[in-house]
């Protein structure tokens, strides 16, 4: 019984138990790694900067041509334009299965400061890039017509080098109120074929998860790049990503694809405001400037 209790206590307060054990057996256990100076501030800075732009998108994924098969989905997206352009992983919205057509419907964007039970605001999927594992949603809700959203600018710092420390902010599940946290790792490798990508080491990146460098600049996004029709004799993606999880697609490539997506977004008309709709009277939030994290 005592063992069970110890295990449960360890699960609940893992770090403290580790520290206590280390103190009890100093020769057997390595000393706990102390946080780097300023690391806590760096984490907080990333969360403060990126958090408001990391939105939750709820949708229903419909499988075309197969009766009415549908499935609920919830993904995290990154607002990359104050006008409501959101970047997500195409894989996460069913885009990886080329033999099927999966269409997101009933798309709702939820924000950090939404009240409980808020339905969010509506958006449209304007384009997807199966080659780069990217998809773009554009908020098109009449209620948000003139609203400015907090966004992360798609500019990258210096090209990542082997061994650089990198950080990815994530959101926990709804059960934990989608609270943000940071995972830290290093650049473990760099690919050139089929395209330039960063291999994370020490942690796994989520598809569509933004990755930052120590300078607070965007390094890229987690992506599952799959063999295309022109690729011959390539193993399945499970084997490709079995060891590493998604790789990191550099920001530069994402930016040029996004510029094309923006051209499409510019052509998407917003819904006409209805008399019942809330006028866009909320104070527009200024888009945060790209600043290095503290």
């Amino acid at each position, binding site marked *: 019984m005592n063992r069970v209790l110890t295990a449960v206590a360890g699960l609940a307060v893992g770090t403290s138990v580790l520290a206590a054990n280390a103190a009890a057996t100093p020769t057997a256990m390595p000393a706990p790694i102390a946080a780097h100076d300023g690391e806590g501030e760096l984490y907080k800075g990333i969360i403060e900067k990126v958090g408001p732009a990391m939105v939750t998108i709820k949708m*229903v*994924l*419909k499988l*075309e*041509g*197969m*009766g*009415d098969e*549908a*499935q*609920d989905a919830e993904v995290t997206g990154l607002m990359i334009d104050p006008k409501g352009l959101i970047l997500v992983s195409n894989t996460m919205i069913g885009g990886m299965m*080329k033999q*099927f*057509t999966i*269409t*997101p*419907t*009933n798309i709702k964007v939820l924000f950090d400061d939404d009240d409980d*039970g808020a*339905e969010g605001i509506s958006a*449209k*999927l*304007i*384009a*997807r*890039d*199966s*080659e780069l594992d*990217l*998809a773009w949603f554009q908020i098109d809700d009449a209620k948000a017509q003139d609203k400015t959203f907090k966004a992360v600018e798609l500019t990258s710092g210096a090209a990542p080098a082997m061994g650089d420390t990198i950080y990815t902010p994530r959101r926990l599940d709804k059960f934990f109120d989608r609270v943000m946290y940071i995972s830290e790792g290093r650049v473990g490798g760099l690919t050139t*074929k*089929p*395209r330039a990508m960063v291999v994370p080491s020490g942690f796994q990146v989520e598809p569509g998860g933004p990755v930052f460098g120590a300078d607070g600049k965007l390094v890229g996004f987690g992506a599952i790049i799959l*063999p*295309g029709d*022109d*690729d*011959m*004799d*390539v193993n399945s993606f499970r084997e490709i990503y079995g060891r590493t999880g998604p790789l990191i697609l550099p920001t530069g490539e994402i930016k040029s*694809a996004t510029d*094309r*997506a923006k051209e*499409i977004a510019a052509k998407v008309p917003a819904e006409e405001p209805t008399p019942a709709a809330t006028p866009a009277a909320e104070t527009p939030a200024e888009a945060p400037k790209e600043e290095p994290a503290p």
Partner: protein
Amino acid sequence: MRTYFFGTVGLLATLASSMMAGCQNGAAGGRSMARVSPDVREAIADARDRVFPALVNVEVVTLEYAGGKEQKNRGTGSGTILSKEGYVLTNAHVTDKGKRFWCTLSDKQRIPATMVGEDPWTDLAVIKLDLSRLLAGTELSTGSLGDSNTLTVGDYVLAMGSPFSLSRTVTLGIVSNTERVFTSAGTGQVDEMLLNWEQRTGLFTNWIQHDALINPGNSGGPLVNLRGEVIGVNTRGGSGMAFATPSNMARQVADALIAQGDVKRSSIGASFRHLQNTGLSEGVLVDSVDADGPAHAAGLRAGDVIRQIAGESLTVRFVEEIPPLLKQLADRPIGGPVEIVYDRGETKGQTVTVVTEPLRRDRGDEQALRTWGVTVQQITNRMAKEMRLSSTRGAMISSVRSGGPAANAEPSLGWGDVIVSIDGKPLEQIGDIVQRYEEVDGLKEKPEYVLIEFERGNKNYVTLIKPRPEERPDPPAELPKAWVGIATQPVLRNMAEMLGHPDQRGFRIMRVYTGTNAAKAGLEVGDIVLTLNGEKLEPRGIQDAGALTRAVRRLSIDSSATLSVLREGKVIDVPVSLERTRIEPQEAARARNADFELAVREITFFDREDYRWDETVSGVLVESAEPAGWAGLAGVRGGDLIQKIGDHEVKDSASFKRAMEQIGKDQPGRVVFVVFRGSRTYFRFAEPDWKPTTEVEPKE
């Protein structure tokens, strides 16, 4: 195709019973066809000729409820025409949940039919042929119901029907047992058989067991004696054994169904056990009493031994005697008094008067509330008991559509939840919820939320659902990129050597797509692309197969590129105007038609290339046609290219929508689809049933 076959437990029990029966009734064992006399052969032929003309193949389109929506399915069975008015006797499990019926007569005419009545307790049903659809001069043949009490073990019988839909099939066998009941392994009690999992059936039946071969599709078909009389309705089978409902029971049920659409039966709310192994010698043991039933109200309790019912003494020693007892009670007038004399312990000969109540169905009706994404079911007494509900009030959710408003509500609605009020208005039964749903669904300005109060377990919840139609946006477009209309394979070092140019690796053109800028630029199959805009392309392995395509995609659409190609030993520069990537099938515009349950998409460039269709071929490709939908029943299926619907040429999704819209307005009795499949065209004839249904898919 519907015929009930037994599961393992039931089969084992049945086999055991059959073996015992075989010992008791071994007279049939020595017969063989070699010893069948010419007289018998003649009798078989006569019997066949008497009943065959009245035999029909029954086709059914059913409406089932799953996944928060209605779902059509198809089934087939067999039946016998009973009268010149066109009444057809079949099984209730053939017609169960049926919405449309057709009968194929012995002269091959396929005639629509309508439901007259179903009796799930005996698994019998009657449908009626639409006589106006018979060819002029058609004289309906009818089957004659004989007296099943005259059957004896060993009698020859013929099973007629449509096994596996193979119409007008006859098989020969003998009667194996005339009072078969199905018992649970171990307990020796009557096994409770269910019709479609929820409805008890066969309670009153002593089955005719025989060995004339039946298979799925024989259900509802006649079992015929050598006098050419229908003496049973084939209902169940498996492992070479078949079971028919006796004709005497079928006659009584069919008469009631034809007269009043149902069979009215009484219940006293008690079940019984035969006396074998009980130590008792007279009467019948009351096995259980429903707490809210008439028997309980009158004072009967489990463990009592009934000695007399309505003045008649009874003793039920064996399990085969249970169905007749149940039938005797069920046949009593509803609401009438029944005097019962019983013993309880040492107290003998007590009398109670039980006032019967109607025997109600176990399973409640269902409805789909499409825009809410749920199906709901009427709660019956039995359902309430089995689900430990406090009453039959409200309607139970029988399924939920993933991603629909009910599934997305917080808290979400799920199977087994009982909706008891909507927007504060209490609901008594399913009709109330359907009425409220239709009111909301019919509003031009839908309310933002509907307040649902529901019960789950012993808790009372409220939730909000947003009544909204399903969205059906076009599939998302791929981000357009630059493209050259060629398909290539990498030429690696070894291959380059074999081709006679060891130092010139590159990409060999396998295909030049017709009508593209690549074709206009003069690129040819066999050319080896060495450079793109002066940059050398040197694939090192098969993993570089897509490198040329990727390099092109990084360029600007509508710009030009120069490909240096090796052709017949010479390197030449080919300038090509780049174009945007072509639309893939996943991105093609789509259209749906809810009436015909048909989903189509437009032809893409790559479809034309793959099928070798030139520009003269037009139409829309069928993505899905629900098998039991109007189009599916007509034989339209996935992959067909619809080129014409009625008089409407179909070239794209817009013309498809226009055609279907017009057909929806005209509501013709027959719609002809001209489809291209493989290398030829086919005509497909749909017969829409334009009656409105509760579930109406919102118009797009």
